[in-house]
């Protein structure tokens, strides 16, 4: 293979671009604020990213099938309330964790059933459950926040192994599992097939409905898991857990190179997308000290990344 051919068939342009962007950002941040690059403070500040990162894995798979899930943040609210209420009535942490996971799984299954069995557009289903989950969480908890789950439980998110926060290990393990699943198993390849052309996938004998159902259900279950990390970090379970997560997660996934029309994307891209957004937020937050700027930049990043992709590769953009 000649060098030119190698260049043309190189599959990781997007990821390379992201790595360059991240390095560029870190270089600028490091020059302006030398303390920004301090590993210890970076690890300390990484705390709030993990629950979002866990959810981003599920959302990546869903977006690759051409779907979307706007309800994950709201599902976290519902899981948090389920966790808090179970803890209040039984006092058992194990039961509370099970309750949170089950609630998330059930919520995701509702999404999955409506999308795959009744064939309603995922956007509308998850917009509806976005309102419903948060609403039910508010109604059940009546605005009460549950807390005092004990020192041990809060160690899940606050504790460290070898200087790295425990949720990071959880995320890394899941990311690797997810990447292997997506690229090495038949079902993983089917997910791409569904996103490319759902009808063709159906005709070639892929059980599209079943795969979709389980993707949304597992997205709900991951919301339950993310809630555990979230609740453990704040030692508080309230109906407003995970507010606004859906936007940042979708931004990270889309910036990471997953096509919003489905059929293209990978876990490595999502991880880089998460990193880019996280570092951008940290930098903006610490340099300008303005929280409002963060949301403007994330919103703009979301739109700009797709716009850029459209401009740079007009032939690839599918209608």
């Amino acid at each position, binding site marked *: 293979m000649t060098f030119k051919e190698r260049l043309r068939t190189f599959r990781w342009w997007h990821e390379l671009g992201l790595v360059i962007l991240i390095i560029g950002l870190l270089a600028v941040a490091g020059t302006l604020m030398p303390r920004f690059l301090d590993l210890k403070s970076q690890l300390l500040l990484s705390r709030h990213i993990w629950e979002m990162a866990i959810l981003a894995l599920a959302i990546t798979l869903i977006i690759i099938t051409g779907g*979307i899930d706007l309800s994950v943040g709201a599902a976290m609210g519902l899981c948090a309330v389920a966790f808090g209420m179970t803890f209040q009535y039984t006092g058992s942490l194990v039961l509370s964790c099970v309750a949170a996971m089950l609630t998330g799984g059930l919520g995701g299954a509702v999404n999955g059933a*409506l999308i795959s069995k*009744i*064939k*309603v*557009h995922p*956007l*509308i*289903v998850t*917009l*509806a*459950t*976005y*309102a*419903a*989950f*948060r*609403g*039910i969480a*508010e*109604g059940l908890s*009546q*605005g009460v926040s549950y807390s005092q789950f004990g020192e041990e439980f809060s160690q899940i998110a606050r504790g460290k192994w070898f200087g790295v926060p425990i949720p990071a290990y959880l995320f890394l393990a899941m990311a690797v599992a997810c990447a292997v699943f997506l690229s090495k198993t038949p079902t993983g390849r089917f997910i791409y097939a569904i996103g490319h052309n759902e009808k063709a996938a159906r005709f070639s004998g892929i059980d599209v409905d079943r795969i979709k159902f389980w993707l949304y259900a597992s997205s709900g279950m991951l919301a339950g898991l993310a809630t555990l990390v979230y609740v453990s970090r704040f030692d508080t379970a309230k109906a407003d857990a995970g507010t*606004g997560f859906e*936007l940042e997660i*979708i*931004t990270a996934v*889309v910036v990471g190179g997953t096509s*919003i*029309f489905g059929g293209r994307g990978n876990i490595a891209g999502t991880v880089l997308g998460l990193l880019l957004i996280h570092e951008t937020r940290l930098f903006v937050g610490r340099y300008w000290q*303005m*929280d*409002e*700027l*963060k*949301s*403007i930049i*994330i*919103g*703009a990043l*979301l*739109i700009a990344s*797709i*716009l850029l992709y*459209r401009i740079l590769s007009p032939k690839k*953009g599918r209608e």
Partner: protein
Amino acid sequence: MNFMSRLLRQREYGLTAVILIIGASVAFIDTGFLAAGNLKDLIIRCAPTAIVACGVMLVVLTGEIDISVGSLMALLAALMGMMISETRMEISMWLGLPATLLLGTLVGAFTGALVTLGKVPSIIVTLGLLTALRGLTTLIMGGNNIDGLPDGLGQMTKYGVLGMPISVWTAIAVIIVTGVIITKTALGRRLFAVGSSRYSAKMVGLNETRLKLFAFAYTGFLTGLATVVDVPRLPKIEAGIGIGFELLVITCVVVGGVSISGGRGKLRGVLLAVLLMTMIRPALTFMDVGESGEKWTRAIQGMFILLAVITDSIVQRRRKRRLHDL
């Protein structure tokens, strides 16, 4: 067609039935629900939602979606306040209010341009704007509320003319104009055409870009209008205006029977849905469930969207099966 299938098929009948049932049962518990003052209050609450829903309905008819109207409303309210407040720039309201409308139209057109010319999916554009515009609003307001709006404006928006606040009259005008656009003009028919089949619409020479731009710009304009006539009723302008408004509007459009994939829907259905969605909260209040009941408002809203889409898809499937049988 028997009664049940008509109830399912034609959203207006179903919605009217639900509204009557809820109205009657709440009135049975407390007749005060039907008192003139309460009904008037209900209509006033409906007005801004109805105004913006008219625009979002057109967007959804073309097969797109707009979930940024709540944040846009907050931004426009902040800008309007900055311009005309006596404690800020003190521009005459006869200049400041049209400027607000113009800004709304411009943001709407910008959204439309990103969707049509930039080819970014509308859900992504408006999801991004939902956050970005809210951030911009808090940035502009800098943590302070804006008060000191001109007295005349407050009077007009609060008490209005002929016994109704100006927002209600505006809503009526917008409804008539939108109704005429949808049913009587070529523009309206073209919006339906683009939504029901982009390909055929293109083949008969319709300019999809221009039609969608119009729908988005119209939504922006109406959001500005709703801001101008409804926000000055509040004692002061806060950065939290319109949180969740986009969801309410989309709920009304979807529950009102507008197909989310475009090309199908009636204004009547949307307006009935606006009434239904708006009466949930006062109905809960009158049923005397107290504070605790009102916290369920959002859950009930979500349930209504789910109910609407499920009936919609069942009806669709039945229709398809009937076509198969022929």
